């Protein structure tokens, strides 16, 4: 495809590899069409000494398929423009053409690291539409399996964060930790990752002996195990120096950016949907919401580790207060909810995970809007990154922990 010039005939005879003006655009990630919006114009007009680096869809550490065009001045990032859509499957359109039960299995792969939460949001919204009362045992099982999934997701976060900073060991330890929990959830739900376990009005299967024995065995050593894994990173000077003071965001900016979950609690806003807008049986379980005020990557990392301890407390209480009784509410096989609208939001490991359902009385949802926290936090990366070094892009993006499945619904 490259035209080769016999020696001496090239326009600049002395150096065939000098880029001519018309060739400049060929190798730059500048889009061929003229800029259509003000922001695009401002981004794609290079200043002096600035170059565009294309961290393309196949990049070792973009947590999934994401392309980010960086405007660099030397090693310092001037501005970034994330390009999404590589993983867009049109889940909302598909859900509009499937009946209410089938939407649950469509929503699992949205945030595939913690897919129980992807099911929990819409299921609560449907139950609001159907005005159905979920039995208490099902609520307890949901909280129990949800918190387990949260710990697994945070364990993986710790591994990813260390891998993006160059450490090889923590990712393996976090996968061993996560694998234990995922095997346990497989004993309960039947699947390791995309569980399809919550049903409208309850849960698919009851607690069985296999699950409880694995849970008991793991609970006995969970605290100590997570502690030793943390020792590798929390006090490691290299890790702390690279993460501290990176991508700091203050209270006001975080609220403006609609951030939720651990990222906003690391900036000092104690907004956790489990306490701010209690759902399920969280009011009856006592646990605190860890918050920090620095708002940098290290704070976000340490905050997630505190959350893991809180989740362990919740699991203990769930096991103690587990009532017995049915695990599914009485519902007809074919659900035709009343025409109406419902919104439900839950606290996922990455932030508030919301579902907005409009039903038109038929068995298919008329409109299902999923609000995914990773989508918002990836946008926050665009606001945090300018001014940092190239090596920090990965650290900041890892600390906000976006999952591309949720971003590209």
């Amino acid at each position: 495809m490259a035209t080769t010039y016999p020696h001496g005939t090239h326009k600049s005879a002395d150096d065939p590899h000098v880029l001519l003006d018309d060739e400049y655009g060929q190798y730059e990630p500048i889009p061929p069409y003229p800029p259509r919006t003000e922001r695009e114009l401002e981004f794609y007009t290079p200043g002096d000494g600035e170059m565009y680096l294309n961290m393309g869809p196949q990049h070792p550490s973009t947590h999934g398929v994401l392309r980010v065009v960086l405007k660099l001045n030397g090693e310092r990032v001037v501005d970034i423009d994330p390009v999404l859509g590589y993983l867009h499957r049109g889940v909302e359109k598909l859900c509009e053409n499937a009946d209410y039960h089938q939407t649950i299995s469509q929503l699992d792969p949205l945030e595939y690291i913690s897919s129980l939460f992807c099911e929990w949001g819409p299921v609560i919204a449907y139950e609001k539409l159907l005005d159905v009362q979920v039995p208490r045992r099902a609520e307890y099982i949901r909280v129990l399996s949800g918190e387990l999934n949260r710990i697994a997701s945070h364990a993986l976060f710790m591994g990813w964060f260390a891998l993006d900073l160059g450490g090889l060991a923590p990712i393996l330890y976090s996968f061993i930790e996560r694998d234990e929990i995922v095997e346990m959830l497989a004993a309960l739900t039947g699947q390791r990752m995309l569980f399809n376990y919550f049903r409208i009005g309850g849960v698919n299967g009851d607690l069985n002996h296999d699950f409880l024995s694995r849970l008991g065995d793991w609970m006995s050593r969970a605290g100590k195990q997570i502690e030793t894994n943390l020792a590798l990173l929390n006090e490691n000077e290299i890790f702390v120096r690279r993460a501290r003071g990176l991508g700091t965001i203050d209270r006001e900016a975080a609220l403006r950016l609609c951030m939720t979950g651990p990222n906003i609690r690391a900036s000092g806003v104690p907004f956790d949907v489990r306490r701010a807008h209690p759902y399920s049986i969280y009011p009856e379980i006592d646990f605190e919401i860890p918050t920090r005020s620095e708002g940098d990557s290290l704070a976000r990392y340490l905050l997630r580790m505190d959350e893991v301890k809180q989740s362990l407390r919740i699991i203990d209480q769930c096991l103690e207060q587990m009532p017995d009784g049915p695990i599914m509410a009485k519902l007809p096989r074919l659900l035709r909810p009343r025409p109406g609208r419902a919104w439900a939001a839950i606290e996922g490991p990455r932030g508030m995970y919301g579902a907005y359902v409009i039903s038109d009385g038929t068995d298919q949802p008329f409109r299902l809007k999923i609000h995914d926290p990773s989508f918002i936090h990836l946008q926050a990366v665009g606001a945090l990154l300018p001014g940092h070094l190239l090596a920090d892009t990965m650290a900041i993006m890892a600390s906000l922990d976006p999952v591309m499945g949720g971003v590209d619904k």
Partner: protein
Amino acid sequence: MDRALRSRLQARFGLELHGEIRQRNDETELRIGAGDVVDVLRALHDEPAFDFAILADLAGVDTGREMQVVYHLWSQSTNDWLRVIVEGLSRDDPRIASATFLWKGAEWMERETYDMFGIVFEGNRDLRRIYMPPDYTSFPLRKDFYLADDSARSPGAGVRHMERTHSPAEAGEAPLRSGTGT
């Protein structure tokens, strides 16, 4: 169900409201026209009585006859979710004021809504397509964009020809039962 909130809202936004404020479970829903989005949202965000600090979600809706934009807000002052439905946007040229002046985070949500429904948000600095390729012309989540393959049939709604769900001809008159939550 926060009765006090309903009365406060009724008192404050009496004339902008379309229809009465409906409340059910833990959600409060009020409907306004496209014109007065800016001052209603600013009032809800800035006034200490409401103090809706967090924009939980911004969604576009195509009800077959008109376009709507739905804002979900959260505030410490009440334990209800507030849903602000901006209705009355025409289907062929839906325009609405952007919320980025209050929440910078709404920029991408508006980009997604534009990409999926074609609703233009005036004042959004970066209204480009976010998921679809830049040269994509149609808006996928609109009701008249029908899926060609037969994954669109529904077992429960009786037998319907596999290839077509809401055919454009039907999109005109209400394909829906009365009262889609209207």
